[in-house]
């Protein structure tokens, strides 16, 4: 059978976007009242819910963990109903652990951990619906939830994916594009203030000479997402201010 045409010669992708366009993003902070910080983040049909607890006393009284810096724990869960074929994943699923590890490593650099000595910060991520770009959604949602929890960070961490289809760099791959075997899929997370890169991860292969173009596009996307996150934080703050003034 013929392969699906991911990018038509007219320059439109399967879902009608142009190569340099992001999906619709909507996000909200403070969605759970029981958590210290929380966020709900939608990027297209990828939907993520994040709850942050902490900083708090480390649960395990392990002297090795009682460090000068805060421990960050990340738990990543995928809802069985998140994809069209329902599938339950075990907790030990390597892919889930991998995503969790990526998010943990990213925020270990972004959270000012020395502020919270001998404590731990737990980030629970739930993927409710998956349509590609899981990692970027997780990072963005976690940023929002951490900010909501009032945890000191160096900067926002904004993530975005970009791929390479039909010799063209494309921004923010959707599920269909990601599923195509040969699409390289690059996730970049930056800290927008100084532009430093907090996470760089790629699946499949991409020739070095093309990497710069794809990176640049992804970073553009990150900056765009930064404004979105910023707005969400502002909205949450306004909400809070309104509540307090009453």
């Amino acid at each position, binding site marked *: 059978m013929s392969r699906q045409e991911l990018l038509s010669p007219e320059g*439109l992708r399967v*879902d*009608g976007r142009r190569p340099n366009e992001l999906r*619709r993003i909507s996000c909200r902070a403070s969605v759970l009242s029981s958590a210290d910080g929380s966020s709900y983040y939608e990027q297209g049909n990828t939907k993520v819910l994040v709850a942050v607890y902490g900083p708090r006393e480390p649960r395990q009284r392990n002297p090795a963990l009682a460090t000068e810096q805060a421990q960050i724990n990340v738990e990543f869960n995928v809802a069985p109903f998140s994809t069209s*074929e329902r599938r339950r994943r075990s907790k030990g699923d390597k892919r889930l652990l991998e995503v969790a590890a990526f998010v943990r490593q990213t925020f270990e650099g972004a959270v000012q951990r020395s502020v919270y000595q001998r404590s731990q910060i737990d980030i629970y991520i739930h993927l409710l619906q998956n349509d590609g770009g899981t990692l970027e959604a997780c990072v963005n949602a976690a940023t929002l939830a951490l900010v909501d929890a009032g945890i000191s960070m160096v900067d926002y961490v904004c993530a975005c994916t970009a791929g390479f289809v039909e010799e063209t760099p494309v921004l923010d791959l959707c599920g269909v594009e990601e599923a195509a075997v*040969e699409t390289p899929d690059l996730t970049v997370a930056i800290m927008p203030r100084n532009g430093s890169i907090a996470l760089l991860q790629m699946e499949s292969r*991409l020739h070095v*000479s093309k990497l710069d173009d794809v990176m640049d596009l992804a970073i553009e996307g990150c900056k765009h997402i930064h404004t979105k996150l910023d707005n969400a934080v502002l909205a949450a703050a306004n909400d809070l201010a309104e509540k307090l003034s009453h």
Partner: protein
Amino acid sequence: MLKNKSFVKRTRKGNVVRTVKEHYLRDDINCGLSSCTHAVCKEQATKPLSSAPRDSTQWGPHYLVPDTNAFVNQIDVFERPIISDVVVLSTVLDELRGLSMATYNRVRAIVRDSDRRWFVFSNEHHRDTFVDRLAGESPNDRNDRAIRAAARWLAGHLQPAGITPVLVTNDEDNLRKARADGIACCRMDECLGVYCEHPELLDMMGSVSVDELEKWEGYAEHLSAVQMQAGLKSSLLLQATLQIAPYNYLEGSVYTKFPDGKERRVLIIGRRDMNRAVQGDRVAVQIHPRALWRKAPSAALVDEDEDAVPDISKKDPAAPAVPEPSADATQAGDGHVQKRARLSAADGDSAATAPAGFVHPSDVTDDRDEGEPTGFVVGIVKRNWRSYCAFLDPHFAPKGARASNAPATVSVLAMDRRIPKIRIRTRQLSVLAGQRFVVAIDAWPRDSRYPQGHFVRALGDAGDKATETEVLLLEHDVPFQPFTKNVRADLPAEGAGWRFDAERDQVGCGKRQDLRHLDVCSIDPPGCTDIDDALHAFALPNGNFQVGVHIADVTNFVKPGTAMDSEAAYRSTTVYLVDRRIDMLPELLGTNLCSLMSKVDRLAFSCIWELDPEANIVSVRFHKSVIHSKASLTYEQAQTRHDDPQMDDPVTRGIRTLNMLAKKLRRRRTEAGALTLSSPEVRFRLENDSQDPVDVEMKALKETNALVEEFMLLANISVARKIHEHFPDSAILRRHPEPPAQNFDNLQQALKPLGIALETGSSLALAQSLDRAVLPDDPYFNNLLRILTTRCMMQAQYFCSGTCTPEDFRHYGLATEIYTHFTSPIRRYADVMVHRCLHAAIDRDADYGSVLTDKTKMAEQCEVLNHRHRMAQQAGRASVELYTNLFFKGKTVEEPGYVTQVLQNGFGVLIPSYGIEGVVYTTEKGAAAKPAAAASAAAALEYVKETHTLESPAGGPSIGLFQRVRVVLQVDDKPVSANVSSMRRKLMLRLVEPQIDGVSVPPAELQALRAAAEESRRGKLSDDKIVELVTEHPEQVKTI
């Protein structure tokens, strides 16, 4: 610009799931009109549609908006350059992708051609033209509605410009609804009526219903897609590609995997069982009961369809016309038709209740006594129709005088004998007689005996060299159009003035080595302009030798992803015909910039060994280089230099060193079991201006040929090892599987009386037994045996290393564990891919394109390479045949020959002096032409399976393999349109010795023929243009 309007689409897959996809609808999609004043349209860059399109009285200036079926059925019409200003809707393109990828690609090709002014309107992504599927609406209806919605929007949008979009559809329902909506619409023929100055467009229309004259009950109904799926899933049906025997268009077969995992062949005999399937179609097959299996020998049937193709309409439809069928098979094929139990929908998925009418595939075993399974087609999984070169059936005599442009329905015969007659409707009957033209099949309804098609374009007069050459290129699927503008744009900007530049070509930074000081030379056949390879060799101080093979650095000019690269990948190979060459790469590269000519700096990819005096590899390295060839020699010149003791320049010394090492390499290879095979090859000496063949000569080989070949093999093997090491999953390699022992059965049988046995256990054993097989009284015998052995071999093929286990990498013929093609990148695309692989293996920064590491894409490209390679070989052979026929036109020659093939009703004869092979028929079917022969024909010779010979029942002489015979060669000189055989222009062979009644030429006629032969020989002597015929024995030619 991003519309945040997302919605939900639901699609159902095998097990019902809900897929949710986002769809962003846009408001920035333009209409394509170049002068559109609309704010959105002004900004967009692509707007090819003319503001003054074709005018018609009915619609005024208008654009065509065809629906999907219009393209599927009428793509040939749309390809005509006259049809411009067409709006292609993305709905239509999406549907086309699903229906026919080939048509989709053709439409895309037209759209790319900016001169045609076609525009793709992405209506599926446009906010105003997108329509949601309604509850209970079928996808087809939804798409029709989407097409109408787009047409309506375009109408409104284009109104200010005064242009009407006209919806073209042949769907009544769609037409009616469009009219109700107030959309301008028409049928295909109405729309073509506007082009009144081009009446042939109407001829080209597909799917015109051609009336069937007589009544018959028609073919069996095909199963529906659902039934077929169920049958295939329960393995009640087999899925396979139908292959028609080249000698008998009524004998088809499919190779397929049975439930027990073995591959077997199922025969499909007769039109009825083929049930409207055409050569190459993917079909679903059911197996006949054992009683109907074929127990007759499976030696090929010959179908001399020539004059004997009966006009079926005069025959009983229940007995499909098999000219001379193998008796029991076809009787079986006919008799059972009515009582055959059909696979019904009810039992389609329950294997247990298989009716008695067929055998379940899992019950099929290899028991030879049961005969070969036969089967019948119950459904078509996928059609594989293409356009066919054809000519008018000469049996179709236009009845009486008729107006020259009145439409008539005629049958045409395809050049490819495996294709059935095709019925077309034409208004240019008188023009087409005696011409070759292209037709396409549109449909094959159940009640029509033959497929229905339409005329595409005329090629020219039959028998004309240019026409025939075009026919053979088309028939072998060789892309021979000149290179397009886009491809030429990828050539270096300097053109022929391109010069080596140390800076640009990266010599300075160490990516390319400067080897211009080496004494490199190239050795090629005379007249060779595309020089792929050059060599050098010299002794090292330590007693070893440095040997270098330098291959044209094509990939330096052909970068992945460019138009030139995709064109080269599509062409895959340069095709060599007798009188012309169809290049894979534009001439500037092939014969100039890449060609390693002498006395200029050229870029190369070098493979440099250190060999010890016994020609063992001490070390090997690969790198890009720049060389300066000191001499381009022909084989003959190189040989002369080598032999001349006076010569002692570095180049000559290099040749001597190379020759010394090559001999050692060759000896070692032979000891390892490399085969020396042979195939008859002919070359023509052409008269320069008219290019008529004047002389036939055999290709001869010199020692220096072997020299070059030896080092090319060495380079290929070294490179294969290297790229496989670096890309274990995606290296392009070439393998040659070991032939199964039964391939040699017939040959062994024939050798038995001569006291010779071939040992086929390994290639070494085979090579040695071939060397021993010499008849003292017949020096040609050994060569003949090698030719016949070649035919028992499997085809060598390209493959991607990730798709095979390393044990299967073996190249049987060359007796090497691993092999690839590296040495001819100018004329083979496989080598280009290998160059990129190798470059990536030695240079991390190399730009090799993403395809190189993609196993599936590589495997796909390998399929293309293998197909093109096979086709190129066949086209080359067909071209030789064409020239052979031209050479013998009007001549009659008597020659000795050897029997190379024994068939049911004929035998193949190879004539060594010309290297020509033809078939002598033992049964004359042209009863009208040869009444005397026909009477005794049936009994003249009978095929005996045990000995694989043709015996005459009366106890006369028999015909077996290797037998020496004398034959008369003729190409009849009748006017081309006289009969089918002259339309096909076959060389005719007739037996002279031994004298067999009813087969040989009768003595009286022989006298006349001999006189004619004498005549033509005398005529030849007087003709000073003709050079003496070269009749030396063909040297052994290796086929790799």
